[in-house]
């Protein structure tokens, strides 16, 4: 830099009146190869060409992570800062997903490393399958089994797509309720959460007896029912199945119903009055 600074006035003085008239703007002249109206002092100091002190944040493309370590020419390949260069990651980086996931790499990766993706359950909510419960603490590969193309394609939106073995178990007598005999459909979400299969809810049951709130919340089917009648999900649930055994737990009911007209120690009598019982 010192050499150039010393030479510049010599060039100006030697260039005749026209050049001398441009003397005040000579510091704005681009250095060889930089192109355009590059201002030397924006990057260099009088102490030397290096280190370069350009504040890249002002360009709107903040140099973060590994971008801080590369040379200027790694991105500005045409040897000039005047040529606009793209900001899209894939304009410089090769894509191991081979374009399957689009061009917005920064949605999943940060500038420090492609190897450690920053995609998590919060980002997954912008897909067709939000990750909740235990789905949020699974390795990605447990659902996205296509390891070859790394495309993270939709594996399935159906529960039984992954939980085929669990459905077979529940339909073969391996669960508290035989799902096949009970006529349950594969609308698993109607009753089950993504945390665990039990306790489960049965929303249609609310029309007969509240098992979502109060002391009966979360109670298992066979704790009350002696048998489970088949369910038709196309019809309203029948509340007169005569299969609920209230007395098994509430054997002391007579002492609590002294003077209650019509009381009888019969299961059906219980839920005729306590249909929406929450402890009353």
């Amino acid at each position, binding site marked *: 830099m010192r050499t150039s600074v010393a030479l510049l006035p010599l*060039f100006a*003085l*030697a*260039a*005749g009146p026209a*050049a*001398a008239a441009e003397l005040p703007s000579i510091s704005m002249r681009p250095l*060889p190869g930089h192109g355009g109206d590059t201002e030397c002092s924006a990057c260099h100091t009088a102490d030397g060409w290096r280190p370069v002190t350009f504040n890249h944040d002002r360009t709107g493309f903040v140099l973060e992570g*590994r971008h801080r370590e590369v040379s200027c020419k790694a991105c500005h390949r045409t040897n000039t800062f005047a040529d*606009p260069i793209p*900001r*899209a990651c*894939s*304009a410089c980086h*090769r*894509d*191991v997903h*081979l*374009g399957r996931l*689009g*061009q917005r790499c920064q949605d999943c990766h940060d500038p*420090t*490393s492609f*190897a*450690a993706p920053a995609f*998590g*359950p*919060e980002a997954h909510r*912008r*897909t*067709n*399958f*939000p990750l909740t*419960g*235990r789905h*949020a*603490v699974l*390795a990605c590969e*447990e*659902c996205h*089994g*296509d*390891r*070859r*193309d790394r495309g993270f*394609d*939709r*594996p399935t*939106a159906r529960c039984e797509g*992954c939980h*085929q073995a669990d459905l077979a178990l529940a339909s073969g007598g391996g669960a508290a309720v035989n799902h096949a005999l009970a006529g349950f459909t594969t609308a698993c*979400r109607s*009753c089950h959460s*993504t*945390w*665990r299969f039990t*306790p*489960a809810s049965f929303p249609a049951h609310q029309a007969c007896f509240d098992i979502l709130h109060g002391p009966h*919340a*979360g109670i298992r089917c066979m704790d009350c029912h002696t048998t489970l009648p088949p369910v038709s999900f196309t019809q309203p649930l029948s509340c007169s199945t005569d299969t609920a055994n209230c007395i098994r737990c509430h054997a002391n009911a007579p002492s609590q119903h002294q003077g209650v007209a019509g009381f009888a120690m019969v299961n059906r009598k219980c839920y005729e009055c306590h249909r929406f019982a929450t402890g009353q």
Partner: protein
Amino acid sequence: MSAPAIVALFLLAAPAPEGGVTAAAAVPPPSGPEASPSARPAHRGVGEVAYVTAERAYLDAGSDDGLASGAEVTLRRHGEPSGSCRIEAIAPHHAVCVGARARPGDTFALPAPPAEPPPPTVLPPPPPEDVMARRRAVLESAPLALVTFQAPPKEEPLAMPRTRAIDLSVTHQTWDASPGGASSKESLDLLARGVPLTSWLFLDLDARLEHWTSRQNPRFRPSDKTQVYLWQAQLTALPSDAMSISAGRVLPWGIPGATVFDGGMVGWHSRWGEARVETGVFGGVVPQPDTLKPTTQRDTGGGYWIIDRQLPGGLFRTEGRLAAVRSPELGTRGEASLTGRYFARALDLSAEANLGAGGKVHSGVLDSARVDATFRPASRLTVGGSYRYDGLGWPQTFDPPAFPGKTREADGFLGYEVVRWLRLGATAGFSDDVSSGAGRRFFGPELIMPAVLGRWGTLSAGYLEEKGWIAGRSAYGQWVATPWRPLWFLARASWSHEETQGPYEDEGSVTLAARAELTSFLALRLSLSARTVLDASSGAGSRPAAYSGFATLQAAY
């Protein structure tokens, strides 16, 4: 009093050998043209030990007498050598040395004084103004043209420039849910790009070794505790600038719609006007999608082209592929892919279409298509979006399903920088599973305050309203800080509500992450995330909770 304190007091308070002026009170000697050589004291030649302690000897000579810190001093007693000591501390006229059993009165030789500096040259006064004006006029009227520097034109290579990089990562990951149990995995990732084996032969390697130390209810490869995935083991020869030959397990960069194959690829590089053109052929057997094991059940072969051109405003690239593909799921079919991408400062635009015909499954020619766009019409405004369509319904030849089905997805976003420390954004989109009819829509605002806490942090928060087959809403708040360059921290809290008829509706989670750049090529990453249900009144039993975390040590060259 400590030894250093005594040393300091001696150096500051001991009387100067000449004139009785203490060091603390000494006036700096005159300098510049006023300084007279005659003011320098005469060289003494010999110094003397003033007094001693058990470990140190205090000398009556200092830096002005030619002694230097760390120098060895040879002591003499009655004219005979009595040992040596090393200068520990020094002042202009005094010094302290250690390492000898000295006695007061011991003498030592002083080095010769440095040579006298030459007297300053007094420059003549500048020429008178009229002489300067006359010289300037002569220069200005000289008939010399402005000397300009023209850089020689740079010869751009025909082939795309190859970047060289080597990354090695060791990771431990763990997932634990109650109820459910824990899973944990160790993995080793190796990534090597463009490693030169000779001046014309390069190696690309992309592989992972995984070992599951514990695993709960695995869906894929349940019996394989140790798994190896090899995406690329490719040797590329460049016999000339106009040709490249690759063989091995090829990861075909730049060939749209293609996949990993075991085989070969030959490319020819040329120029078409100002555009850089690569055309080529490829072929080989395609590994299994879930294990990447070689198989003869799947294969592919065809031709491709890549055209790159630097336009005044940005970079234009188009890629294409014509291929025959055989697989157990789709049969033998012909495929064509075409992309067009334009990357500039104000606009990123990308479009891609994949066509197919023949085989067992008919998708109506269009297998898939996607469009991505990001537009920056002003420095503070960014608008973008993407649309993706998958029309090819893959038959599932094994469970659980791994291949894509028919889907439609789109999303858009908008960001505006109100002031330097405040950005407002919004996002919206949908995702539809065509085959099952299940779909979702989402929209919501986002607020980002970049570096609002200086190096102690960027704050951001967002909210999403979600409709569709899994409806609900979610929100998050996040803090990211880089207190000093090698360290990076993140803390995030999120909440989600699901409109379900199941027992749990609300969840909360907390994520903590850190990254430390230990050296310029070594980095450590840590992350821990925990979540639980928030609606405690729902259902019987214990409150379910889960956490996941990982630690990665990454070396990059």
